[in-house]
């Protein structure tokens, strides 16, 4: 079941969702088995920002019905630290590397894209546009014009695949996706987490150190599927679908809804090789019945 995604040849359609698999920590925990039996067809790095970030104060996790709320807050070594320390290790992975970046201004994003794209180890880029633009105050990915302006700015900086990761906390994700496509994006990915909150069971104060967080996992699966279907109907570029995928059947549903590839996030926390399992289950489904036109 080999797949093409924005010009990248993938062995199967399952990749990891950004921020839900740290290949370097996995090497420390599982050793070289991670390289020998890598579960994903591409590796998407956790979001990197221009400057290093510690991330949000703990607690950062809350388990909800069939899901997880996290307020990790994008801890990362920053662009320079990533290029120096992480990239050489990630280059050992047996699959294409897609680097996810986020900036608080258009120029920050441009700096990130230019610096990352020029590295040979990098096969493609994902733009995380879920953050507020510190200049406009708007969420870069919730407003079609903001998104278009951002993609216009960075598109000329690289010929490598550029995927825009959409936020589900928007009135019309399909309009944002369409704007990204028109501005030159090679693909879109969705959904990111849905804004959520939980209170401390005893004190009643917000549980998460950052007050609110993002919901992922099975709880958002049906919402993700609806958004992926809506976006895929509206754009012609490939869509990477994600949100609550636990099984090959869930991945299959996203592909049926028009996705070209599927990312697995929270399920990896329950099963570190979920990606490979889901790819195998998907292949079985493909063998069982002819998959629809869009596949």
């Amino acid at each position, binding site marked *: 079941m080999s797949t093409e995604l924005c010009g990248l040849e993938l062995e199967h359609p399952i990749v990891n969702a950004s921020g839900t698999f740290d290949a370097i*920590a996995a090497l420390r925990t599982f050793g070289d088995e991670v390289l020998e039996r890598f579960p994903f067809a591409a590796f998407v790095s956790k979001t990197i920002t221009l400057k290093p970030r510690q991330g949000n104060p703990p607690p950062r996790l809350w388990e*909800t*019905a069939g899901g997880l709320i996290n307020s990790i807050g994008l801890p990362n070594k920053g662009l320079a630290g990533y290029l120096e320390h992480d990239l050489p290790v990630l280059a050992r992975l047996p699959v294409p590397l897609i680097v996810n970046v986020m900036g608080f201004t258009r120029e920050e994003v441009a700096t990130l894209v230019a610096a990352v794209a020029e590295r040979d180890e990098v096969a493609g880029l994902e733009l995380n546009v879920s953050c507020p633009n510190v200049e406009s105050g708007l969420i870069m990915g919730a407003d079609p014009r903001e998104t278009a302006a951002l993609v216009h700015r960075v598109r000329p900086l690289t010929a490598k695949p550029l995927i825009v990761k959409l936020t589900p906390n928007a009135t019309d994700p399909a309009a944002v996706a369409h704007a990204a496509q028109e501005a030159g994006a090679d693909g879109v990915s969705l959904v990111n987490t849905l804004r959520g909150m939980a209170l401390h069971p005893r004190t009643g104060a917000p549980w998460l150190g950052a007050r609110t967080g993002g919901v992922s996992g099975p709880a958002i699966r049906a919402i993700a599927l609806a958004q992926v279907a809506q976006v895929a109907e509206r754009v012609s570029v490939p869509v990477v679908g994600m949100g609550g995928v636990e099984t090959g059947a869930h991945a299959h549903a996203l592909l049926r809804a028009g996705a070209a590839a599927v990312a697995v996030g929270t399920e990896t926390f329950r099963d*570190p090789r979920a990606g490979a399992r889901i790819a195998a289950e998907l292949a079985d489904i493909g063998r069982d019945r002819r998959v629809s036109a869009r596949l």
Partner: protein
Amino acid sequence: MNRTLAPFDRRRGEVEQVDRVGAYLRLLCSDPGGPAPRPGQFYMLALAAEWGGGADERPYLPRAFSYLRHEPGRLEFLLEDVGPGTHRLGAARPGEGIWLLGPLGAGFAAPREGRAPLLVGGGIGIVPLAPLQADMPGPALLGFRDAAHAAAGELMADVTLCTDDGSAGHHGLVTELLAARLDEPVEVYACGPPAMLEAVRLMTTQRGVPAQLALESGMACGFGACFGCVVPTRDGYVRVCVDGPVLEASDLEAVPAH
């Protein structure tokens, strides 16, 4: 190295027995093909069926547990029923499937030259100290709420007990017992509730006694994937699951309450 690498797969074991040890529950299960862990390492556990549908429709994610005992192909855990995950595990029936991931994290290190291990445990925190003591004999100072919980002290040797209510052993805090031993050339190995660990951290760092603390933290993955389990150190946040759970007391700013 105080870290055995984990097979890159969750394994399906079988629950063999669940029994009471005082106020706690001991869970025995098979661990087909699992390697030998090092004291202080832990596992992520989830039952294979009906993992969900408890309070607030949880549990959903696996839960972290130190191992109590290991023999080839077999693991023992000790649980305190505090929520839907531990409740479901405690109600497991022999023959049920159980998902195991591990051993995870970094365990305890050998004591520094010239120092003898002194084990300090509070409540369910005694668990990682039991296999540590088996590898590295030393006296254990153990504190519990009451006699019912203190029954778990039998899982270890060379124990000095205390309880909050005086119903068994010394009436008072385990840190009082520890205070009396800090002039000796010891290295402290501690695990227990945050307030106890924080007291141990303060006492030992003030007195210049090395201490290795096994921390807990809410975890989603257990293998460094989610960045959810961090605690602050003098060097910024570290992940308890890959950088710990055993951390040097002197590296911590404070043991976070949770």
